[in-house]
């Protein structure tokens, strides 16, 4: 059996591998290579070394976008997971119509970011109208607008993951704890949270990478206004690539840096929370 597997391994993997190569690996390598060149379209690139990287980091807007993105990521990771967990805890209790609630909370996740961006822009501008300002009045407005939007969009999804995890906790554990006289808070901190740590890992990872990669709702909601102070990394890369003269190479370099940052954070986070998982089990 094992021998058979070895023999046909390559053949069975081949179709997927080719697709992976064509649609992911080759474009990725090309992308990294292009970041060292100056180009208009990918067929006429000229090698310029690390110039693009130097320019990317001497660019004030890039650094601003980086800071803004980190701030957004921190705030949304905390708020999204907090609210998702609270909702999950509520909706795993014996509540009337809890399935309907679950469906409702999940639904925003099915709407595209561009649409959400425009819808929330209308809503927020409608509210701000009363105060005689608009969303682009101050960067803080855009910041909280984005946080609100991303919470609304992501909470449902994370909630579903938490619900699945909580439902998997063996009833015996909780019953035993209740008989021992533990109150709800003790059950939560000593039984529920430790057992769902794998889900917490996944949710933290998902919210973090979603927050970093956010582009569509950022573009639709603020498009960086005022003065690109609310532009996140992906939007800044887009602006560099398309709206700057000879900006393609620099944009590409920024994208590579962006990739490194995101993967580094994801890796670190995965490692840290993994260790906790082992401890708890």
């Amino acid at each position, binding site marked *: 059996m094992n021998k058979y597997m070895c023999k*046909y391994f390559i*053949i*069975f993997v*081949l*179709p997927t591998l*080719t*697709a992976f190569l*064509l*649609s992911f690996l080759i474009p990725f390598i090309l992308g990294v290579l292009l970041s060292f060149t100056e180009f*208009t*379209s*990918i*067929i*006429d690139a000229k090698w310029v070394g690390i110039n693009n990287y130097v320019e990317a980091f001497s660019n004030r807007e890039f650094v601003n976008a980086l800071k803004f993105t980190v701030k957004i990521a921190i705030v949304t990771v905390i708020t999204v997971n907090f609210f998702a967990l609270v909702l999950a805890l509520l909706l795993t209790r014996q509540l009337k119509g809890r399935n309907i609630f679950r469906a409702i909370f999940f639904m925003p996740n099915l709407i595209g970011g561009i649409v959400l961006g425009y819808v929330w822009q209308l809503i927020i*501008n409608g509210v701000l*109208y009363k105060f*005689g*300002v*608009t*969303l*682009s*009045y*101050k960067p803080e407005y855009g910041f909280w607008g984005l946080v609100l939007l991303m919470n609304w969009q992501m909470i449902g999804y994370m909630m579903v993951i938490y619900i699945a995890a909580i439902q998997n906790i063996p009833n015996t554990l909780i019953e035993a704890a209740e008989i021992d006289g533990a109150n709800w808070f003790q059950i939560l901190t000593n039984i529920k949270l430790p057992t769902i740590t794998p889900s917490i890992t996944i949710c933290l990872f998902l919210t973090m990478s979603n927050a970093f990669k956010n582009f569509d709702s950022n573009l639709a909601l*603020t*498009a*960086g*206004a*005022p*003065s*690109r102070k609310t532009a996140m990394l992906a939007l800044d890369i887009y*602006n560099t690539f*398309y*709206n*700057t*003269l*000879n*900006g*393609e190479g620099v944009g590409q370099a920024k994208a590579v840096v962006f990739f490194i940052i995101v993967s580094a954070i994801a890796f670190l986070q995965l490692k840290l929370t993994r260790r906790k998982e082992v401890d708890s089990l």
Partner: protein
Amino acid sequence: MIKKKKITSLLLIFVMAFMVFSACQSQQVPDSDSTNQESSSESDSSKDVAKEEKADQIYFLNFKPEIAEIYDKIAADYEEETGVKVKVVTAASGTYEQTLKSEIAKSDPPTIFQVNGPIGYQTWKEYCLDLKDTKLYSFLTDPSLAITSGDGVYGMPYVVEGYGIIYNNAIVEKYFALTDRGTEFNSMNEINNFDKLKALVEDMQAHKDELGIEGVFASTSLSPGEAWRWETHLANMPFYYEFKDKEGYDDSILAGLASEEIEFKYNQNYKKIFDLYINNSCTEKAMLGGKSVNDSMAEFALGKVAMVQNGNWAWAQIKGVEGNVVDEKDIKFLPIYIGVEEDESQGICVGTENYFAINSKVSEAKQKASIEFLEWLFSSEKGKDYVVNELGFIAPFNTFEEDEKPEDPLAREVLNWMEKDGMKSVPWVFAVFPSQNFKNTFADALLEYVQDNIQWEEVVERVIESWKVEKAKGE
């Protein structure tokens, strides 16, 4: 037996692999009928060699979404007449560069595309075919309008446009009939400099309730991507005068192209007219960040305001607004006065930022077919009929007779202003603005200025700085 099995499994694998490949490929070409015609890049290149003499399909990447449907009709007609299929793809508003960049790298790239002037030509020069020997070039009424470099001709203008302050004459007449007005003017012909314009506008604003309007000017739209009337068109005025003052250049556009840095010498003039717009508008200053061009045009079309800055292309938009109350004969142009000595002899801004270029990297047959299509469009009876009556272009070609001028009132106004004695049209020097980023920075600064977040001095600083930075990137 085992061998047979092996062969079958190998075959199966090939089929699967093939399916994966073909799935990938059809994703690369979004347009379904182009997949049929050129199913793979391999056969495409071999085809190009095979049919050297006749291309059966050309690809036109259109810049103007507002007239996309008309191009589809033209393409259908042309195919019927000549058998050459014209694939028309229209880039969504404001995304032309992105679309072009990705389309041109494909196996079926656009054969006709557009560059937006000398700066756009710098980006695309490797792709622009020399059009010096074409009939199309010989049709030009003024060959100097084309984009040239050395001996070659690389960009072909195909429409002349004009912009200024559009006003609704009915409302202005109503004002002139008021008994308690504070100015002496009796006709718009008297308004020939900034001070007079300001006096008129401010007094009209004071009487807005009697005139039944919400403000004199439509909203100064400043939401992201909607500010081009200010960072491009209005910005043309101060920079035209700045470049004109430079010595040693043939014209203001060349002077602008050579400017590594700018002084923004006429920034106070820009501020004057801009302040006039925002202070006498139907919308409060702080709310302008949420307004779009469509909003402003709708305000004008519905008669809520008397004036709006825009160009002759806006007529289609005004006409298209539901409940439009502006009569065709009441719609007129006024030059944008910014309070310089030349005000009284200044006409409206006339020029073009739309140049056709032929892709030099497609097969010769396709290049020829593309040129033939353009020549057909601008010289055949049918093509000209489309250009004049449906596209509404003021085409700068000598193939158009006197009676073949567009019907729409704003295009006629542009021609009127161009022909007025002693009036000098302002050329479109904004074609030399270094990049979209420069314009965006300008727009961002204007937005913060109207929201009172920054002072005017800082707007000026940012504009000067951005020009320097962006210009350096083009080196």
